[in-house]
């Protein structure tokens, strides 16, 4: 294991040696990025301090900001509180279409991280049963958009249900306390709810999950491509480590998110795919397929050009030199 890591490190080092020395903006004092329970790679990266090591020579500080959901990460990016943030792909598209100046050069995972959850003894059996019910979901995140797309499958709209806006963890609590009838869940909270309270997944659809996007502020990407590249390289290192040490990675997730090991293992082993980090046609297609819901539920401003936003958001080329061969 260690040898493989060393080899990968060497490969990454060689790649960075060939990086053109760009006359970037003033040396970076601090690089700010997020970490989240829905991005196990970020937790690993933060735990081992690989970014801090990478930037020590330049004297650049690394600031980690906790993100409670895509909505938060995108909000921080928009307000220039972080430079690099993790979110679901569709959520990033929504933000981009509404004016948030971000680009996504890297995919941190392909998760099946959301589904519609009902309590253990719920009488709800099908999507159509959701009509008129109270459903908790965090606005501006993949679970929320998943909910809308699932409703569409059953011919329902947002106005056909009563949406209660709660952050992911609070949504789980509300479900288990019987305050809402259903919940658009997110791992690890969702996995925890299944294993610990016996909650049932009412509806799953892998295709409706829109990948984990690592978003970078446009201005940052333009003025500090070197630093961005190094972050991606560090992410690659973490990604390789996670694939090779799934159980250890689950342990880290379980410690950070304060969930049990079985829950963490469920999320990492069964519901995450770390094999495709470079944004490509597969991701573009997923976004194109998902985009209409943004317009149908008036989440974007009227007249938004979603095709253009997809093109502006997804950067299929930047990270190519830094992706280690699988």
């Amino acid at each position: 294991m260690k040898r493989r890591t060393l080899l990968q490190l060497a490969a990454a080092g060689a790649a960075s040696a060939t990086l053109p020395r760009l006359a970037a903006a003033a040396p970076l004092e601090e690089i700010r990025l997020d970490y989240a329970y829905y991005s196990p790679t970020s937790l690993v990266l933060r735990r081992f301090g690989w970014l801090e090591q990478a930037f020590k020579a330049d004297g650049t500080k690394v600031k980690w900001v906790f993100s409670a959901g895509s909505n938060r990460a995108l909000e921080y990016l928009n307000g220039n509180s972080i430079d690099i943030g993790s979110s679901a792909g569709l959520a990033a598209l929504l933000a981009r279409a509404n004016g948030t100046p971000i680009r996504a050069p890297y995919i941190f995972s392909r998760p099946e991280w959301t589904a519609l959850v009902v309590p253990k003894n719920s009488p709800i059996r099908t999507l159509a049963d959701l009509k008129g019910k109270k459903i908790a979901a965090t606005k501006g995140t993949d679970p929320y958009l998943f909910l809308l797309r699932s409703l569409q499958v059953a011919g329902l709209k947002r106005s056909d249900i009563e949406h209660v806006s709660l952050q992911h963890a609070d949504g789980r609590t509300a479900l288990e306390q019987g305050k809402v009838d259903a919940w658009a869940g997110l791992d690890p909270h969702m996995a925890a709810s299944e294993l610990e309270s016996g909650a049932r997944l009412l509806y799953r659809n892998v295709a409706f999950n829109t990948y984990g996007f690592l978003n970078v502020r446009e201005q940052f990407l333009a003025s500090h491509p070197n630093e961005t590249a190094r972050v991606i390289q560090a992410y690659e290192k973490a990604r390789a480590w996670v694939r090779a040490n799934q159980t250890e990675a689950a342990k880290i997730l379980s410690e950070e998110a304060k969930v049990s090991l079985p829950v963490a293992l469920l999320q990492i082993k069964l519901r995450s795919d770390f094999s495709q980090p470079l944004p490509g046609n597969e991701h573009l297609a997923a976004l194109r397929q998902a985009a209409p819901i943004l317009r149908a539920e008036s989440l974007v401003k009227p007249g938004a050009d979603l095709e253009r936003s997809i093109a502006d958001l997804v950067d299929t080329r930047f990270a190519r030199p830094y992706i280690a061969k699988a």
Partner: protein
Amino acid sequence: MTTRVLDVPAAGTRRRRRGGVPLLLVLPFVLPALLLGGAELAVRAGVLPANLMPPPSEVARTLAWLAENGLGAHLAASTARVAIGFLAGAGAALLAGALVALDRRAAALFDPTLQALRAIPSLAWVPLLLLWFGIDELSKLVLIAIGAFFPVYTGVVSGFGGVDRKLVEVAQLYRLAPLALVRRVLLPAALPAILTGLRTGLSLAWMFMVAAELIAATRGLGYLLSDGRETSRADIVLAAIVLLAVLGKLSDMGMVALERRLLAWRDDFAGSRA
């Protein structure tokens, strides 16, 4: 010896703007117009980034769009919450305040505790209320009632306490029963302070309503505000803020009108300039 002539305007004349629009009617709109116009220009010129500060023209368009897409339901929900919460809180405060002001033992019993509770900031109540009353209407209404309670309570207590002793002596000459004394003398005399408390309580009720709706709501202006936040729609955020300002101002104007009617007898500086 030189004679100087004083240029004294004839009695009854007053300077008027050409065109007949009095200055005092125009002045309130000057600042908002300048701010809005400045913001619009700044965004168009690229000085202010549009994703952080949508131009007023865009906010106006969003308001128009909202008006055709369920704004009425949001407005109704928020207004209803404020109305119910305010009435409950203010009503309780009127009773509690009167009791504390008029009975010394009740004052010793209740006032210290109420003053301590008053010091708790609004947001600190939220987790507790959510725990006890859930995420439905009750927790929101209770939060709003709490917000309205304390200014009204303080107004009532200080209003009654500040009644001129000389007037009370006059009433004592007539051997008024305690209830009659409260109704005929103490209440009217305390009314200015009570109305000030009510006015403050109302504006706080709006504030607490937004806090309540930010936590867990399905409708309302606070819901709209958080909706805009979570989907990166700064224009919706601003639209909600504008609506909150307008509604708050309207309800305040209503209170002021009420005040003016009920307190027309007051002999004070504000009245003398009218």
